[in-house]
């Protein structure tokens, strides 16, 4: 394989992995933390009809799975790490979410106004 081809593959790979410019940029951000399997803020609010980038910081040593069937989210967050995902645009309302691994303790709502 020629050097140019290798370099081109590396370049495409780098572009893909860095991909820092999403196709549909989020208009809002929401940061959540998890401590003792509880989300904080407990009932976060985001604007309606807006694409939101959600970042979850897991302060517990154990892994968590941020999950909502109502606004379609599923994200593993290893212990002590953080992870992000995009949600919405959502209509105004109350949407349940939780850490699937500790459903009872963590269950709470996202408020969309």
């Amino acid at each position, binding site marked *: 394989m020629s050097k140019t081809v290798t370099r081109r593959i590396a370049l495409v790979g780098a572009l*893909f*992995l*860095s*991909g*820092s410019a*999403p*196709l*549909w940029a*989020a208009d809002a951000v929401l940061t959540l933390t998890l401590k003792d399997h509880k989300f904080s803020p407990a009932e976060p609010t985001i604007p309606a009809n807006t*694409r939101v*980038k959600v970042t979850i910081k897991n302060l*517990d*040593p*154990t*892994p*968590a*799975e941020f999950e909502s*069937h*109502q*606004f*379609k*989210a*599923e*994200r*593993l*967050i*290893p*212990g002590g*790490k953080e*992870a*992000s*995902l*995009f*949600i*919405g*645009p*959502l*209509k105004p309302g109350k949407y349940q979410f939780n850490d*699937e*691994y500790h*459903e*009872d303790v963590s269950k709470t709502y996202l408020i969309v106004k």
Partner: protein
Amino acid sequence: MLSTALIVFREILEAALIISIVLAATKAVPKRSWWVSLGVVGGIIGACLVAFFADVISSWASGMGQDVFNASVMFIAVVMLTWHSVWMSKHGREMAHQLNQVADAISSGSRPLTGLAIVVGVAVIREGSEAVLFLYGIAAGESGQLSQMIVGGLLGLAGGIAVGVAMYLGLLQIAAHKLFGVTNVLIMLLAAGMASQGAGFLVSADFLPTLGDTVWDSSWLLSDSSVIGKMLHTLVGYTAQPEGIQIIFYVVTLGAILTLTRISQHSEKSDVSPKHVHKQNA
């Protein structure tokens, strides 16, 4: 312990259902147990690797690696299921009619089995890695719960496998000549459901637009998190609040598989009939 069992059960359920359909769909194919076992074992090894490198995978594609990974896994399975459907539409009828004379299908029969072994493998990888991470999390972080975790984990595993076995035995009740038709429909719906799930992952990574976040809401009737909802989610791609793009992926995948199987059935007629004549003469 019960909550551990329930969580492991839910993770195992999806993989167990997929394996049961694959086993029923390949009932008459020689060596299928070997291929399916290969998929399961490969999947378990893969699941442990994915759980171990979860952090690294997350960091790919500027933090959206999990979605890209999950979507890739889904689309690999969709391609393999499509391949199987197309292959079955060519050879399924012969196999259904000559269950005992499939010796000459061995060499060709193992080909779609590679695809189905991959489907089994990726299903086990995706669901299994979450179960492994969850169990590891309890083992590592919550001291004194290890024995409870083992019992709960085993209960969940047994429950998931039991549902898979029940589904498989249920499918075997179907008369042999109809079994391929039924499993083929199941496999097409499975593929369409996986394509729509894959689209959902790409939406959370912001690689696709939602095209409507909740096209309809049937959660009052059947919620995604109930066991029945979860089973239908795996089997036919049921989602209580689908995104527009998920519906498009579902319909397009279903349409594409149907079209491809029709095309291959038509080409079969011209290939196969002279061979039959030849066999009768000989």
